[in-house]
């Protein structure tokens, strides 16, 4: 409360910034242009195409596979050769093809080297930097044809994407504001400020057809308009970076790779919503689990303030706006707008009834605009290229591009940006490279734990808000988990439901108890104790939970269950009736057996078994004691002769519990 009172006290002291109507627009524009020029330090940018440089991806995934050591190795090698002045090393944000990390690209040729080790560096510099060749053995190979591809631009994963938000992410150093400025950064802001027409900005965003990228797909311009219109002593602009879906990392990447695009988008939003109406303050709510994003964002905010792009009197326009970072403490539900504002206010992150709208009474009771990271990052592009350019991309109702994090049992995992309306097949097979060798596509889970599974029959569905909803799934924030025939769909649904049940805030009963009871039913089914009545009960409970839950977490939690029941009912029936797990995943329903034909008695499994369940004479067929076996799969993994079979079905003993 104290904070809030102080806040208001400060409001009175500052007063409301007045529209500078006394100044002719052109003069104001000139002033802003001068301020922008002052902010530019082109000499500090790492340079553009044509320059000899090596781009090393330092996104979280590549960092995890050792890209820092790689970059250091490159710098050392360049120093050893005395090339430090001639060749620039750029530690860029994520390039997107996380599967192949750590990645480095050598310019000016644009040669793409994936999965590098520091020991490869000397060769690459010798071949591709000092000379103009390629190291054939280190090149990326097209998974379809097996042919090496040397140019980054020719890699299908990149070639088939259409990047708007992520256009420069792999090129700039996220810690260097000049890289962003050199590529036209903050010009959209300058443009907006010079025009002095906040309503016009809203018009533009509205005309572009931009819809919220956080999941619900609410028209962004409309939200801004409401927020501007709602009276308040102060307005808040919140960027929702509480990306909690398992397998989703689009927002993290945008914050890590190009934090300035988000900042610029937020300042534009703040200007559009608050200028001439009320003072505006900004928050970025970002997960504590994203330390790199926080670090880079904090750095970027400091740089933007230093260059006069944020804070008091932005670009001499008289507009004040600053952003602070609020770190979430690991609750999925805090991605929900009202829970998020409660969390910022220092209260328990619990959603509230939707009778009070955030755009009218949000943070501290004031009109608040809350958009997703990607939404804000799209805004500068719209201002730069015009509403029509964005509206030209996508489908009738869903405009622009969308970033998806492609994960699961697919060849190329990573971040994919495509125009709305691209088909699932295009994303998964053309860009994603299709399934792993020998495996068959089964389904793709869209929209995180709240989304639904889409089976192969619907692979040609265009990705937009409406068509995904009609399949029982949703766009969500853009998670895309691909599964193949080794995944049990009941177990898969259980995984997501377990996540949402655990992450429920516990406020309303359908979500708190309903999801738990559904989870128990799924657990019974995967333990071979389900009945056909349970399937009907699951459907009934799903409807109850969907209709009765207070917020979207609950009302979408049953989606994975409902869609798997809808598209993979036969798998449920196999578990319930035949006590069989077709994918051989559900432990109580499977059993490990030694294949007598193939076993050589090599003892690999006997030695590896952690519980001593395998016995037998050396060079004789081994035997697994089913009573001791804990089904850890170790024996199958260590067997050199493929002699461990996994069986499922009525023969399998039903471990634990009696049949109901």
């Amino acid at each position, binding site marked *: 409360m104290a904070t809030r009172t102080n806040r208001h006290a400060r409001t009175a002291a500052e007063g409301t910034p007045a529209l500078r109507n006394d100044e002719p627009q052109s003069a104001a524009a000139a002033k802003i242009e001068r301020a922008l020029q002052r902010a530019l330090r082109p000499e500090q940018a790492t340079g553009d195409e044509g320059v000899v440089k090596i781009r090393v991806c330092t996104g979280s995934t590549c960092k995890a596979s050792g890209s820092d050591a790689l970059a250091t190795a490159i710098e050392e090698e360049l120093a050893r050769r005395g090339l430090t002045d001639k060749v620039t090393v750029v530690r860029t944000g994520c390039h997107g093809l996380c599967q192949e990390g750590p990645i480095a690209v050598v310019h000016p040729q644009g040669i793409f080297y994936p999965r590098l080790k520091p020991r490869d560096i000397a060769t690459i510099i010798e071949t591709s930097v000092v000379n103009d060749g390629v190291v054939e053995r280190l090149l990326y190979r097209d998974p379809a044809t097996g042919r090496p591809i040397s140019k980054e631009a020719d890699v299908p994963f990149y070639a088939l994407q259409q990047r708007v938000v992520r256009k420069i992410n792999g090129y700039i150093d996220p810690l260097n504001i000049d890289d962003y400025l050199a590529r036209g950064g903050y010009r959209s802001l300058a443009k907006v400020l010079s025009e002095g027409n906040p309503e016009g900005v809203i018009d533009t965003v509205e005309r572009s057809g931009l819809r919220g990228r956080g999941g619900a797909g609410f028209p962004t311009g409309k939200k801004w308009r409401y927020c501007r219109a709602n009276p308040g002593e102060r307005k808040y602009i919140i960027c929702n970076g509480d990306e909690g879906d398992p397998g989703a990392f689009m927002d993290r990447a945008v914050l890590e790779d190009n934090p300035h695009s988000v900042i610029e988008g937020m300042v534009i939003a703040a200007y559009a919503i608050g200028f001439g109406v009320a003072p505006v303050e900004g928050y970025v709510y970002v997960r504590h689990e994203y330390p790199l994003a926080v670090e880079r964002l904090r750095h970027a905010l400091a740089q933007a303030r230093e260059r006069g792009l944020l804070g008091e009197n932005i670009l001499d326009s008289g507009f004040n706006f600053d952003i602070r970072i609020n770190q979430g403490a690991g*609750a999925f*539900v805090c991605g929900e707008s009202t829970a998020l504002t409660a969390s910022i206010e220092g209260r*328990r992150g*619990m959603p*509230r*009834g*939707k*009778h009070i709208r955030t755009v009218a009474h949000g943070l501290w009771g004031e009109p608040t605009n809350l958009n997703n990271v990607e939404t804000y990052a799209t805004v500068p592009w719209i201002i730069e290229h015009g509403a029509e350019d964005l509206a030209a991309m996508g489908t009738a109702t869903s405009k622009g591009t969308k970033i998806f994090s492609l994960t699961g049992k697919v060849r190329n995992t990573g971040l994919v940006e495509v125009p709305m309306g691209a088909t699932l097949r295009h994303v998964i097979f053309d860009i994603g490279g299709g399934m792993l060798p020998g495996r068959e596509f089964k389904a793709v889970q869209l929209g995180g734990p709240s989304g639904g599974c889409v089976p192969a029959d619907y692979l040609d569905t265009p990705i937009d808000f409406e068509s995904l909803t009609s399949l029982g799934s949703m766009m969500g924030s853009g998670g895309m988990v691909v599964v193949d025939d080794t995944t049990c769909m009941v177990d898969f649904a259980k995984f997501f439901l377990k996540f949402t*049940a*655990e*992450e*429920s*805030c*516990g*406020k*309303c*009963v*359908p979500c*708190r*108890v*309903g*999801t*738990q*009871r559904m989870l*128990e039913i799924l*657990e*019974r089914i995967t*333990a071979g*104790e389900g009945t056909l009545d349970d399937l009907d*009960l699951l459907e*009934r*409970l799903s409807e*109850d939970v969907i*209709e*009765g*839950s*207070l917020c979207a977490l609950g009302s979408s939690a049953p989606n994975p269950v409902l869609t798997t029941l809808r598209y993979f009912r036969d798998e449920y029936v196999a578990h319930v009736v035949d006590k069989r797990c077709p994918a051989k995943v559900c432990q109580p329903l499977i059993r490990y057996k030694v294949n007598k034909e193939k076993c050589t008695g090599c003892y690999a499994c006997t030695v590896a078994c952690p519980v001593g369940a395998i016995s037998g004479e050396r060079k004789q067929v081994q035997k697994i004691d089913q009573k001791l076996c804990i089904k850890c799969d170790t024996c199958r993994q260590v067997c050199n002769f493929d002699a461990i079979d996994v069986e499922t079905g009525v023969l399998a003993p039903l471990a*634990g*519990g*009696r049949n*109901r």
Partner: protein
Amino acid sequence: MSTHTKATVKLTINGQSVAAQPGETVLTAAQHAGIDIPALCAQEGMAPWAACRLCLVEVEGTSKLQTACTTQVQDGLVVRTDTPHIRARRESYLRMYLSDHNSYCEAPCSVACPTHIDIPAFIAEIEKGDFAAADAIVRRDLPFPGILGRICPAYCESSCRRDQVDEPIAICALHRSARDKAGAPALVCAPSTGKRVAVVGAGVAGLTAAYYLAQLGHSVTVYDDHDEPGGMLRYAIPEFRLPQQVLDDELRPLWEAGVRFVGNVSLGENISVNGLLSGAFDAVFLGIGAWQPETCTIPGAKVAREALDFLAEVRSGKRPRMGKSLCVIGDGPTALDVARTARRLGATVTVLAPHSATEVWWTDADEAELQALGVEIVYEAQARRVKLDRAEKPLAVEYTHPSAESDGKRGRRATAQADARTVILALGYTPALADLDDEVGLSSDQTLAANPYTGRLPVDGVFAAGDAVSGPTDAIFAVAGGKRAALAIDAWLGGVDLPALENELALYAALPYLDQVRDRKKLSPLAQRLAEHSPVWLKMGIAAEPKPRAKQTRLSVAKQLETFTEVERGLSAKAAQAEAARCLQCTCESNGSCELQRLGIEYGITENELVVSPKTTSVPSAVRSLEPDMRHPFIERDMNKCIACGRCVRVCAEVAGPACYDFSGRGFMIKVDTPYGEALQLADCITCGRCVTACPTGALSFNERALESFKVDESRCIMCHECVDVCPTDALTETNVFEEARKQWHALVGQGSGLAGGHRLCAGCGAPIVVRQVLMGAQVPVVTAAATGCLEVSTTIYPYTSWKNSYIHTAFENVAATLSGVETAYRALKKQGKLDEDVKFIAFGGDGGTYDIGLQSLSGAMERGHDLVYVCYDNEAYMNTGFQRSSATPLGAWTTTSPVGPEETGKLQERKNLTEIMVAHGIPYVAQASPHDPRDLVRKAAKAIATPGPAFLNIISPCPRGWRSDGANSIDLARQAVNTCYWPLFEVENGEYHLTYKPRVKEPIRNWLKRQGRFAHLFKPGNEHIIDQLQAWIDEEWEKLLKKCGETP
């Protein structure tokens, strides 16, 4: 509020036009219009929370259901609250709530027991190890727990909720063990009423009636046609099930209480109902049982023996003549007992049960016992004839049987036969009532037509119960009937209109369950004991660690076949306690007032597919299982009943203020808790009780027992009236001086504090409390000064001060001198006319600055007679400099300069009696006070300040650091110092002593010492004498003081 000026809004709810005020919600509008929308989280006076999801309604024009608690009324709004769709959703959510509701409204065992013993209560006593208390609880409703604990078929156990987890509680064995371990029973009777009651029949019903009649003060004579009392208990139930010794022991209290037994007297022969009534008796109870066997018409049956005769013969110690093989025809309890007895007598036994295995009277356990004993049982056997030898002795019993193969001739059923040199008939029994028809009238089924509630027969003054009324059945029904009749007879003798009572009870029994619960308190105490009700059993989740049910040790089968020794040996005390601990205690304070219960009943949730028992699956339904928190003296929190509606959280934060609660955890495991799970009273709780009244279930409840026995500590009362306001049992009321005292106190409090917060004194320090209370006594401006010490350094950290009045900073030894000077200057200025304001002077000093260093200046000031008050806040050592002894330090206390070691054990000297030294100065006012009693302290301070001339106050001031005590206990330690008489509260006005508080019980000083670390060493071996020495000193001083005050010791 002038509502008539506001425009009204018209909306339609369920087709009914409803007027509402703008800004109102649909929920309140509906409530005002008398339309019920269930709402568990919404509460008047608080912002909507929208969490319970039960107030979801359909609003025309919206696609989704809306919560009525958040939807504002609008003109023309069309709302439906009760469509099948909405009801189905609500039902589902209620199932969800109940599936996680780990408790129960009412104990099913007590309801199932025909005598309605308070089973959870007696089991709770056993768990505590108090078998006598358990026995007393059982005997309120069942006079012979030792008997029924052996032979009762235990309807309670088959309804036990624990069965859903593992096995029912062994309730029957438990009340037997309560009796076995409680010592000899006694029957305490009310004073004699002078009324005489005849009980005919000394069976279970008659003896029960006799027991309660005697207890109620009536003179009872029991008649029976046997020579000894007990009826079936003595003559039909074998020794190995109910030893005669037990029976005699259980009945002894009756005879000791003066009940007379007259044996060998038959109704109809020696006595008659009319004879008894016209003779000496005011009422007659008939408990004549059902002894007349069903006749058996099959050929050869005349040679068969009757089971009851057989059993009676064995019981009397005779060994009946019988062949090697024996056949029992029948499948009731008697047949069972005959079979068991016959096996002990060495016969091979076949039981021909006319009914199927599922229809027979006995249980699976009984069947297992018979089989273990080697008894052959044939179910659905219809005896056709008894085959006789030439001597007309039985050879075998021929019977038909569904699975016996037909011989194919004329579709006749094939017969089988069982060898039987002895045939015993146990086919069933009826009451022998023919003679009574004229006297009392019979019902159509040839039983006594007694009223089910009172046992009253159509003839005035005659009552009946037991098998003669119900037909042959289990003893426990006879107990229930006998008890009812006894209560009714007592009422009738007292002039109660029984027909009216019976009517009332019949009407009550027909009420819906919740109305029964609500109306129960409106019934008279008698009616409450006689009333019958049938609860609705909602299906709720249970969480309990599976634990095996206690088993009584049993005689081995070989031993059973050899002897008539009792088979079941009872439970050991330890086993009984462990078994009692398994009890789920299915009781709830909120039974009948619980909103969840009401809705559960309305939506009929007696089955709940969301509750899956661990007995049927490896993945049972998770249910919250938390230890109830009973740490707060009045507010009990059982979070197993919590539905996380948040009402308590919000009412505490938004209405009451302290915000003691919030949610913790997430998802299914969310719970309402206090900060860090602390006891509620440590979480700023003001015990206003709002959380309890807000709770829609029984999760929060008042500990009514504690409230009823609550004693107001008047010395601490601040007249806030909250206790009277919140007391749910009206146990607290105002006294006649309350209002006056309240006004005075509130005026004092209203002055505000003379010492501002934010000082640097430790948490729990007595000094600031003392200062505040002293300053409350000042009606005029005061000038204060403090000697160097904790108080001075902590309240005047440069450049700040906590003192709201004028304050002089001075040195350690001269506060009295400093203030003497100021006071003199003031008098001089006043004399010169330069000042006309009344000002008073107060000096504060610690015990160091008063008892020791500043004593000369204090003595001087007092002697000179300055008009000032000197207040010593006595914390009993130099605490400010790190705990050095002062002359106020008590004997034995550790300080850094009175160390504890092999040579020395704390301070070696007694404390200086400074108060007496000050009295010796002959000043007008001296007093001792304590901060635990603010009213006393403030009064003394006011007196001291108002007194012209010098005054001295010595006030005990606990120091958590130096006393090595918990800061939260400071005030309590001060109180205890007073209650031990270590720090007596008294005042000396112009030399006259007056004791201002005398403890009701003088506490031993050990209790006070024990709570302070500075005395810890005194409790080590070898140091006890120091405590004794201190106690002796206190006793001596107290005696002296009492004398001076003119009090009797």
